[in-house]
């Protein structure tokens, strides 16, 4: 037989375990209360019987059996709640409030305790057998003295305590069980939400999210973690889909152009016109362009999909910056641009050297491409006071208007005034992807402002987190 779902849950099993521990602790506690209260009641009754016995013995020592007899008769008829019985050496009753000793054994010398029942007739004539307790002793002269007391009242008190304790025990177990079931059900319900979420995601619903109840407990933490993860997965999936669309979109036009050119070349060749070799050369160039675009999009998509740059290693990024400066310096000179590099030495970094080199190369490419002759370009590598590494490239070109800055890092976005320049609009997207895959970011800001009648220029910074 399968247990209901609730009873199979871990919280419920834990509840049972804790309940058992709790019950054990409660029994020990209740047991102690029992000994401390019920035991005390009996001890007190015994002490009173003892005191009565001692006072009678005192009377016996002073006046012999007659004085004792006298005292017993007086006391038995008085208000004292004790039962008395006095017998001679042979066990024959002399006096007392009861007809016979509840203890038949008259042989012993020492005090001998006993619990027994006394039959009493109450005012209505009904017989009641009450519990009683007493002690019997042989006196110096051989007489036997018994003193007892009706303990019905105190026994009743003890019984009440015992009943109360049983009740308390049952309550503890009941409450514990109920609480356990309640807690288990709550936890199960919370977990059920996550189980349902996982099932939904597995079924392909990437928009499903776990409910965060705002209790700030571990459940919420788990739910938030799961939601973050799902956000990320959704973003990555979106990125991949976007990359696919972008590739399809951006490769379609050059591929169409390539195809058209080849068709025209074929027709011309058949008619003996045109130069098929030149046509093939152009086609080859087009194909190379397509491949370049494809490689760039692929690199971006891979970086975004991986989330983290592959093949990370520690290296001196100052050296890399110097290499890039040296690589591009002459290109700047050729274009009549003033080039300067300010590189703080020994900027150690952990990352993918090739990707960071590519990113800096892209930024320098852009700066050279968009800065008119007579302008200036500055490459700077330094550590910010926050500990982050900053590679910035400042140019004196036309700059990027504030409202376009978020847009230019997107794939295939090209500003109107750059349409005439070659390129696919992937350079900054790749830099952005490189930055993100290293836990860094790309910052675009206004450049140095007016320079040689140009400006305001652009300042692009690749900011990478500090290495611990």
């Amino acid at each position, binding site marked *: 037989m399968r247990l209901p779902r609730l009873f199979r849950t871990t919280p419920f099993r834990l509840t049972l375990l804790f309940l058992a521990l709790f019950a054990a602790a409660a029994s020990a506690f209740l047991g102690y209360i029992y000994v401390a209260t019920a035991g005390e009641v009996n001890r007190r009754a015994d002490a009173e019987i003892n005191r009565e016995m001692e006072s009678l013995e005192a009377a016996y020592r002073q006046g012999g059996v007659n004085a004792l007899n006298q005292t017993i008769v007086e006391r038995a008829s008085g208000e004292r709640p004790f039962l008395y019985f006095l017998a001679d050496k042979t066990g024959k009753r002399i006096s007392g409030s009861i007809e016979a000793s509840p203890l038949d054994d008259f042989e012993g010398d020492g005090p001998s305790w006993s619990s027994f029942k006394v039959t009493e007739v109450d005012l209505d004539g009904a017989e009641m057998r009450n519990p009683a307790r007493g002690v019997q002793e042989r006196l110096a002269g051989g007489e036997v003295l018994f003193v007892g007391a009706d303990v019905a009242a105190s026994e009743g008190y003890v019984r009440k305590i015992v009943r109360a304790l049983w009740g308390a025990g049952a309550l503890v177990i009941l409450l514990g069980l109920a609480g356990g079931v309640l807690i288990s059900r709550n936890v199960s319900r919370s977990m059920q939400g996550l189980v349902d979420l996982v099932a939904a995601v597995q079924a392909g619903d990437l928009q499903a999210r776990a409910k965060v109840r705002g209790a700030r407990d571990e459940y919420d933490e788990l739910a938030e973690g799961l939601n973050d993860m799902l956000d990320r997965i959704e973003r990555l999936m979106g990125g991949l889909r976007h990359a696919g669309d972008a590739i399809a979109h951006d490769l379609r036009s050059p591929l169409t152009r390539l195809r058209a050119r080849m068709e025209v070349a074929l027709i011309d060749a058949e008619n003996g016109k045109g130069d098929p070799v030149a046509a093939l*050369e152009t086609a*080859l160039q087009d194909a*190379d362009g397509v*491949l*370049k675009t494809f*490689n*760039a999009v692929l690199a971006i998509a*891979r970086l975004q999909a991986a989330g983290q740059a*592959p*093949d990370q290693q520690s290296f001196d990024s100052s050296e890399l910056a110097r*290499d890039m400066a*040296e*690589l*591009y310096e*002459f*290109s700047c000179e*050729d274009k009549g641009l003033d080039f300067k590099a300010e590189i703080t030495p020994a900027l150690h970094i952990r990352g*993918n050297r*090739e*990707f960071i*080199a*590519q990113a800096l*190369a*892209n930024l320098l*490419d852009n700066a*050279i*491409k968009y800065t008119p002759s007579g302008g200036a370009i500055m490459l700077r590598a330094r550590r910010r006071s926050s500990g982050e590494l900053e590679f910035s490239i400042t140019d004196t070109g036309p700059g990027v208007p504030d409202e376009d800055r978020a847009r230019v890092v997107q794939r295939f976005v090209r500003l109107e005034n750059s349409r005439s320049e070659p*390129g696919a609009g992937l*350079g900054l997207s790749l830099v952005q992807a490189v930055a993100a895959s290293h836990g860094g970011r790309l910052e675009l800001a206004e450049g140095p402002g007016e320079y040689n009648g140009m400006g305001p220029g652009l300042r692009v910074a690749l900011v990478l987190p500090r290495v611990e």
Partner: protein
Amino acid sequence: MRILIIEDDIEAAGAMSHGLTEAGYECVHAPDGEAGLKEAGKGGFDVLIVDRMMPKKDGVEVVETLRREGDNTPVLFLSALGEVSDRVVGLKAGADDYLVKPYAFPELMARVEALSRRRETGAVATTLKVGELEMNLINRTVHRAGKEIDLQPREFQLLEFMMRHAGQSVTRTMLLEKVWEYHFDPQTNVIDVHISRLRSKIDKGFDRAMLQTVRGAGYRLDP
């Protein structure tokens, strides 16, 4: 010169073989790793062009087996896997060069040429000599026809690489890889700028230009 092409894509192998044959090489094609190993075992090849992902035995396994058997024929890996880690795996397996698919034929040609002459030019030398050009690797001086040419350190490295591959086409990608040791794809003409600087230093004032531009491929240093 004989080249063994181990490539499972028959058409790609055919195009490659055609191009290389046109360039004067003798080509043998093996359609998978096992056949490639068998063919390579016969010996007599100057360069092996090995695809990485193939049926039966992949390229890395083929190269590792060859190297274990003591075969030191230069190997050029061809692969669609272009990440740095992929290159490292390929080069660690014992390959000498690594070209990522899709590639331009002149690039392949240039690399094959560089590999096929590797053993001749790889000897330890203190001076390099190409035609009138003389490079002293110890005191790092360059003379052309007795006239000293003053070069920056990187220009020196660039010229050294060109001289070691004199008479061969060398592509821009190869220069970035071998001289600067970066593997990214330069979008602009950065390498051309460096070459043109070098050219102005070694060819200016002489009636014959040694540094040639090879259309569609890159550059060549002629004696």
